[in-house]
């Protein structure tokens, strides 16, 4: 005789309400699992998609994604000249926020050598790759642009020539691929007024030097403008059968730069930017699971307390303890499993509505279910304790 089910049938309204409430908590836990996986996936996607043999960055910097790295563009020639290096391409990556269509949107720009260089989009599903040196872009569909759209960046219009969904930026923003000079221009191009001010300031500084005549100052001015030929990393492809560690060591030793393999670059992200996010999400998930268990345990305790006299009657009629244990624990597990299944169904039907990518994987669902199941058992302990210490004598009397 399934006492738990009969009791729940009588209290089905409260049972359903609790299942929905706790189910929403499980939805958040599962969403955070997906968010965690999604963040890891997105955080590493660009590195994995680019996948050069070596990432060469500013010395002692864990760049270009985990930490800022700045290099003069011409350094890639030096890297190219190293023994074992087949190709070395300049690479620039930064995040901007610009109006796209009617709304302001954040996205990341990648500048690469479009003439056979590394770091460009690999899989274009609509349109083509960038073929002209200027004013063409390949974008992620999340940007909301279509092939042929013309998007203003800085003082120029850029035509979307292709779409790729290969990767997003490490913080989930859509990627926009530009030629290296275009990317540098978008990053460093200043407003005309600002440039005029800067020139004036510089000219005034030079004019103050007694050893420079005004005409000399004027002539020097263009040479002292800030350099825009800046990159963040150099992507390296090695010749076949070359020892990657050795080349990396040589680059570090002779060029005073840092060089990482793609695996090391992934590890940098996992231990760096992604680690604190992972810890934070783990903490949230743990707290939410604890809250779920507390709510289930309070509900089960209330359910148990409401039928404490019935439990006393059952004991008086000779019901063994397992009958009582089964009833209380079954209710707790029905509630927990019902709530979990509701949460699972909800998140699997709504994950696309979340602004960040939720990557839901069966293993995470299973682990969460096991934790929830164990939580359901723990939640029944308080009710069980009270039920088992109920004296059958309570059934007697008015």
């Amino acid at each position, binding site marked *: *005789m399934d*006492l738990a089910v*009969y*009791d729940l*049938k*009588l*209290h089905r309204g409260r049972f359903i309400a609790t299942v929905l409430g706790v189910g929403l908590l499980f939805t958040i836990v599962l969403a955070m699992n997906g968010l965690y996986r999604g963040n890891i996936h997105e955080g590493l996607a660009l590195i994995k998609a680019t996948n050069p043999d070596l990432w060469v960055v500013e010395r002692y910097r864990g760049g270009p994604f985990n930490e800022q790295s700045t290099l003069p563009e011409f350094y890639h020639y030096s890297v190219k000249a190293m023994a074992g290096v087949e190709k070395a391409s300049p690479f620039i990556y930064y995040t901007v926020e610009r109006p796209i269509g009617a709304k302001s949107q954040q996205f990341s720009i990648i500048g690469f050598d479009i003439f056979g260089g590394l770091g460009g989009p690999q899989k274009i599903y609509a349109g083509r790759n960038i073929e002209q040196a200027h004013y063409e872009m390949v974008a992620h569909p999340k940007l909301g642009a279509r092939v042929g759209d013309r998007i203003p960046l800085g003082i120029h219009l850029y035509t979307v020539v292709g779409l790729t969904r290969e990767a997003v930026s490490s913080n989930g923003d859509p990627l926009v691929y530009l030629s290296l000079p275009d990317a540098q221009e978008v990053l460093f191009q200043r407003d005309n007024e600002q440039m005029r001010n800067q020139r004036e300031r510089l000219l005034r500084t030079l004019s103050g030097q007694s050893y420079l005549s005004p005409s000399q100052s004027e002539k020097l001015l263009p040479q002292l403008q800030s350099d825009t030929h800046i990159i963040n990393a150099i992507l390296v492809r090695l010749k076949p059968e070359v020892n990657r560690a050795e080349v990396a060591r040589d680059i570090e030793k002779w060029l005073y730069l840092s060089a990482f393999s793609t695996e090391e670059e992934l590890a940098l992200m996992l231990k760096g930017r992604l680690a604190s996010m992972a810890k934070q999400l783990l903490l949230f998930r743990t707290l939410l699971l604890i809250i779920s268990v507390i709510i289930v345990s309070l509900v089960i305790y209330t359910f148990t307390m409401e*039928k404490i*006299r*019935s439990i006393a*009657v*059952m*004991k*008086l*009629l*000779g*019901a*063994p303890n397992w*009958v009582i244990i089964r009833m209380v624990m079954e209710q707790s597990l029905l509630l927990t499993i019902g709530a979990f299944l509701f949460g699972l169904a909800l998140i699997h039907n709504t994950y696309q509505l979340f602004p960040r990518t939720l990557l839901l994987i069966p293993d995470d669902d299973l682990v969460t279910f096991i934790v929830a199941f164990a939580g359901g058992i723990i939640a029944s302990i308080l009710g069980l304790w009270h039920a088992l210490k109920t*004296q*059958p*004598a309570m*059934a*007697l*009397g*008015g």
Partner: protein
Amino acid sequence: MEILRIEGLSKIFGSGHLEVRALEDIKLSVSEGDLVALLGPSGSGKTTLLLCISLILDPTGGKIVFDGQTIFQKNGWAGVDVRRTRREKIGFIFQSHNLIPFLTAKQNVLFPLSLIGLKKEEAESRAMELLRYMEIVDRADYLPALLSGGEQQRVAVARALANNAKLILADEPTASLDTSRGKKVMELLKKIAKENRSAVIVVTHDVRMIEGFDCVYQLKDGRIVDEKTNSA
């Protein structure tokens, strides 16, 4: 045939200056077909005695012989599984019926049958038979909340009879009923005792009903002070 014999039963709560002698030197004997009353005012020890007979409360001393087996003596329960004895040999009727509220009338009767491991079909048939016997079969699928007090009482009796109990213990079954309804319950208990060859012990302080009993034990301050036997 003797169902229950109690000899020199005592129950003491607390110790030292807090000691309370709830029962002292209780002697009684109940045979099959007997309808016996334990009568007394509040605090006379009748509920304590009922708890001891129900195998819920450990007596302090004395001897209980139940169904031909000594189940309690000086040293405690004589290797008896008290819950098993209760579910297989004792039936209970309560003042407030104490039906399990989330089970229908039939399921309430089925519950003790499920505890003794009766097969489902057999249990269902027995439950329906009992409900028919108690003239409540048309309410078999009703929850207790939808039954009147009298109907609940009949379901409670059907439940008490489910395990073919040798001994039926009734706790104040007429306390909340008017005289005519109380008498009907007494007639029912008498009928059960005779037809089922069970012994029925009723704890009551309802002096209106004492005429219906085969034997009335009057308790006062934990002792049996009077024993009356009504000849049929």
